């Protein structure tokens, strides 16, 4: 099988664009990624589009109606917060399979404001606040409290994740926010679902990101190898049965399985990874994934954040983009925005937030329900 490379990748600055349509927002990222590769929509043989909010709305085709209806096959993908990563993976798989030599993946989302989720169905009476809470901040608070139960992780340690990621985003002009949030600010922010305060919840924003994937032959033929990023692994898992499944979505097991499979596919270990963009939908979640991704041993995640090992300049910087907490979390775009961030570091083009000497990077997303997508990327030599 051929190797597959990212030869163009970009994202728009995340924000709120109520006056634009979803296809318009997606088209902007598609244009940016095409420009980054120096190619045009006429060069693309297929389009893979990730979007949740209009999952039945043929968003991929409508993006082509904005930028060029070339008649290529379009696959529209919906997979909760793993939507963008799934679209990227489908694009990768088509190149690996030898179907196409040049394809584009676009992730796009236009979000409302406020709480996502809620307990129970619509039958009878509302269950929210009656049978606990099904809001996303509560669900991930409970997942964090499971870690606290096992390892004594503290509210302060969870809060430090937000301090770090908000700090990182001050160096990322494409992040929604560029604001320092000291520890006391994070801990004293409005409590949403203990231990997640408002500053420990990801930001609902509109956004898009896109990537162009090429076969090795095509990338060489087009002279695009100098900035190319090799896709060393692409893994997607769903959640295996767990005894608390029905009341406690399990984001851990599917991540652990995906990580193990990704390291095996890449022929690498966690110790080889120079930077990570992981799914910090809530500050509590980030802590869990240090261990799930093998960045540290079980029970070491609290120490890892305390010691600054996951901050820029540390052993393995995590979410130097600002993460979902500060860059923002446009659900369908997030998985490809992660690819953009890691690729930018591998290319040595990340400016002030550059992870020095980055050679291998890992991206991770979780879609509750559940889907876990992991990609391992390497600077092409």
């Amino acid at each position: 099988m051929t190797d597959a490379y990212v030869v163009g990748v970009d994202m728009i600055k995340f924000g709120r664009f109520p006056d634009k349509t979803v296809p318009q927002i997606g088209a902007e990222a598609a244009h940016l990624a095409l420009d980054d590769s120096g190619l045009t929509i006429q060069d693309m043989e297929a389009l893979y589009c990730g979007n949740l909010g209009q999952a039945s709305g043929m968003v991929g085709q409508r993006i082509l109606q904005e930028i060029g209806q070339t008649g290529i096959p379009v696959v529209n993908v919906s997979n909760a917060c793993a939507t963008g990563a799934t679209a990227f993976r489908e694009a990768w798989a088509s190149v690996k399979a030898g179907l196409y030599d040049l394809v584009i993946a676009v992730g796009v989302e236009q979000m409302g404001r406020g709480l996502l989720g809620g307990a129970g169905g619509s039958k009878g009476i509302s269950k929210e606040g009656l049978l606990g809470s099904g809001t996303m901040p509560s669900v991930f608070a409970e997942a964090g409290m499971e870690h606290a139960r096992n390892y004594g992780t503290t509210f302060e340690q969870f809060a430090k994740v937000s301090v770090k990621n908000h700090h990182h985003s001050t160096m990322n002009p494409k992040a929604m926010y560029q604001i320092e949030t000291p520890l006391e600010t994070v801990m004293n922010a409005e409590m949403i679902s203990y231990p997640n305060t408002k500053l420990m919840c990801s930001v609902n924003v509109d956004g898009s990101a896109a990537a162009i994937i090429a076969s090795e032959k095509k990338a060489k033929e087009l002279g695009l190898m100098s900035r190319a990023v090799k896709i060393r692994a692409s893994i997607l898992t769903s959640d295996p049965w767990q005894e608390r499944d029905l009341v406690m979505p399990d984001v851990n097991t599917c991540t652990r399985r995906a990580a193990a499979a990704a390291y095996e596919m890449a022929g690498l270990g966690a110790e080889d990874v120079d930077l990570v963009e992981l799914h910090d939908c809530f500050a509590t979640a980030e802590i869990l994934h240090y261990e799930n991704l093998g960045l540290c041993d079980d029970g070491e995640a609290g120490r890892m954040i305390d010691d600054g090992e996951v901050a820029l300049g540390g052993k393995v910087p995590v979410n130097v983009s600002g993460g979902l907490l500060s860059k923002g979390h446009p659900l369908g775009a997030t998985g490809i925005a992660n690819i953009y961030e890691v690729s930018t570091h591998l290319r040595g083009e990340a400016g002030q937030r550059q992870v020095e000497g980055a050679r291998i990077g890992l991206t991770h997303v979780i879609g509750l329900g559940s889907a876990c997508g992991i990609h391992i990327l390497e600077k092409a030599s």
Partner: protein
Amino acid sequence: MSDSPLPAVDYLKIPDDGDPYLEGYKCSSCEAVFLGERANCSKCGERDQMEAVTLANSGTLYAYSIVHRSFPGIDVPYISAIVDLDGGGTVKGNLINVDPEPEKIEFGMPIEVVYDDALGRKDGEGNSYLSYFFQPSNAAS
């Protein structure tokens, strides 16, 4: 409109004569316990091996969150709790009769399941509902 309260969820059973209880479905092949009626086991994949079981009204607190912001009309703060029932089955609900403060809540604390009106909530037809709640098992009810 029903004369007597309806169950807030399908797995809460209200017998004509007897106390309300939570019903699980247990796989006779692998012993996995689920809430609510189902035909197949998602742990082992066996078909038509599920048996209805009465879940215990006692258990221990596994994890929780203290909810301070919810949707309009929902009283906060409250404790959203995940409880492992004795003998199998994990259930989520409100933990009551405990102050919603982290210092007052201990992992593993013994819990009992109690049944009461669903916080006055009614459906569009005016039906009342019976729900279940968790409280510390040493609390006076």
